[in-house]
């Protein structure tokens, strides 16, 4: 564990040119060490392929996005039509646009699997706290990027999403209104807003790419966690990344591409909302506005707070809980203090983990439900449980739970002597 990167290098420059390059910019050596020879635990399961799937998705989004920007017009009078123009007139535009919009959903689907995998197998625990924090940062950047991208087609849902989300900043005491006008560039969402969102939507993916580099760097210092959560003890516990995991990841990518392709070719709009085919109108809010599915759990938390808490009014309260639901993820490594990483060996944690997953899905369901009747009460209960999981359940479990015995090593568990 923690072997410095150069120790496992098997690279010897073959030709004179390679030797010349290696002394000046050892990029071939670096790539061989980190993309091919990197010692990887030999027991990684398919949940671990989502890292590679996410890397591919980022590339897909950037490539299709750069192409779409060649045909899109960020102006309130023209934006809506220019997206239709892409779909109807541009060669292959219908597919490229669908890949980009469906791709956002697939990207989030993959990132949720990736995050929940990390939560189950304790991938956030020492020495991987920075790796986890960078991951949460990428998630936040993804949400900002996806939100601004959703505004660009300038349909009704785009416009009202922009209005509602920028209004979140209006809840900030005293400075709320100046900040709101600064963000929108006007007294309401309008052309300046659309223009700057386009600019930032183009910028942020490259910021994400940079943080992804840090994320992988932070991964390659301690090396991968693994399904049993036991540290790598000898070279017998690992296999080289290539060809073992390049192939496994590639297979995961191919399987992932099947539903992706199905959506793109057969149901490109199924994850969207019909109202977004109506051009933005600042005077009429659609009867039932809902964010994209991947924001629903957090949206449910935002609107669950409809009561004043002491001197904090309901609007600011909702915003605090909404922000808190994401910020709390940054602190996860210090809330779960159990020394055992993998949920497989934590009999009580396992149940609470799945309860948390069910609660999260329930929040997603409630985020899409109308804000009335029993849904309002359920949303409050689920919001309370979301926070209780982090603030109460995890710290208490770490103290009272008796974990099952861990296998001595990865090799031993692979050979089936683990559960003696």
């Amino acid at each position, binding site marked *: 564990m923690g072997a410095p990167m150069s120790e496992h290098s098997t690279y010897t420059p073959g030709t004179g040119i390679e030797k010349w390059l290696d002394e000046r910019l050892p990029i071939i050596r670096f790539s061989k060490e980190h993309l091919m020879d990197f010692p990887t635990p030999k027991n990684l399961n398919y949940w671990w392929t989502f890292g590679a799937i996410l890397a591919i998705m980022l590339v897909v989004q950037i490539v299709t996005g750069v192409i779409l920007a060649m045909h899109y017009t960020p102006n309130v009078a023209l934006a809506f039509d220019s997206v239709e123009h892409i779909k109807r007139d541009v060669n292959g535009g219908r597919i490229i646009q669908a890949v980009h919009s469906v791709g956002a959903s697939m990207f989030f689907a993959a990132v949720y699997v990736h995050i929940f995998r990390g939560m189950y197998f304790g991938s956030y625990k020492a020495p991987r706290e920075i790796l986890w924090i960078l991951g949460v940062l990428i998630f936040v950047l993804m949400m900002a990027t996806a939100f601004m991208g959703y505004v660009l087609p300038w349909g009704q849902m785009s416009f*009202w999403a922009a*209005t*509602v*989300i*920028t*209004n*979140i900043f*209006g809840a900030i005491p005293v400075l709320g209104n100046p900040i709101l*006008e*600064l*963000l929108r*560039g*006007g*007294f*309401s969402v*309008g052309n*300046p807003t659309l223009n*700057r969102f386009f600019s930032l939507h183009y910028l942020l993916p490259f910021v994400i790419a940079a943080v992804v580099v840090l994320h992988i760097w932070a991964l390659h210092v301690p090396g991968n966690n693994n399904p049993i959560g036991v540290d790598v003890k000898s070279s017998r516990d690992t296999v080289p990344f290539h060809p073992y995991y390049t192939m496994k990841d590639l297979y995961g990518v191919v399987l992932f591409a099947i539903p992706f392709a199905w959506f793109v070719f057969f149901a490109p709009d199924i994850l969207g909302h019909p109202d977004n085919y109506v051009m933005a109108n*600042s*005077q*009429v*809010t*659609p*009867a*039932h*506005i809902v964010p994209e599915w991947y924001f629903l759990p957090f949206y449910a938390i935002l*609107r669950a*707070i*409809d009561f*004043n808490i002491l001197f904090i*009014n*309901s*609007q*600011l309260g*909702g915003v605090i809980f909404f922000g808190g639901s994401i910020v709390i993820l940054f602190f996860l490594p210090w809330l779960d203090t159990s020394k055992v990483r993998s949920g497989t060996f934590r009999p009580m944690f396992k149940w609470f983990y799945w309860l948390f997953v069910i609660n999260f899905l329930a929040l997603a369901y409630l985020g899409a439900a*109308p*804000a*009335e009747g029993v849904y*309002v009460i359920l949303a409050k209960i689920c919001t309370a449980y979301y926070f209780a999981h982090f603030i109460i359940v995890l710290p208490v479990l770490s103290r009272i739970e008796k974990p099952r015995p861990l296998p001595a090593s990865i090799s031993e568990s692979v050979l089936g002597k683990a559960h003696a």
Partner: protein
Amino acid sequence: MATQAEHHGTRRDFIFVATAAVGGVGVVATVWPLINQLNPDASTLALASIEFDLSAIEEGQSVTILWRGLPVFVRHRTQKEIDEAKAVPMADLKDPETDEQRTKPGHEQWLIMIANCTHLGCVPVGESGEYDGWFCPCHGSVYDTAGRIRKGPAPKNLVLPPYDFISDTLVQIG
């Protein structure tokens, strides 16, 4: 010797602090225009005041007009709605305001409000909700016939724009 070294140290410290201070001012002066360009521009600010003729609006009718890019409700209230609004005890209100504070004296049939829900800015639907006023479809806030928040996550009553009656039928907003 010691005093001279201290003296030198002090001079150097002064230069450090002075350089950092001037540099800091320079950074702020450079960054501020880059942020300030995000604020509403001259063309947006130019739309700050409008006049609107009320004569075409029948009793019980409501229209939505645009002021500074914001939708504004102009509602010609019925006597029943005015009575309902006046009958509400202040203790029932989350953001207590009397009906008189919500309208202009002598023109209390006219309710003129910015049409964005004070929660997150959606446009509430008129003549709906359990208080006969407005219902916001986004997050379920309910307003009464004076546009006061009665239920749901919104913290404040619907905001009144600055306006004055120029005559009985002409109103200037902004």
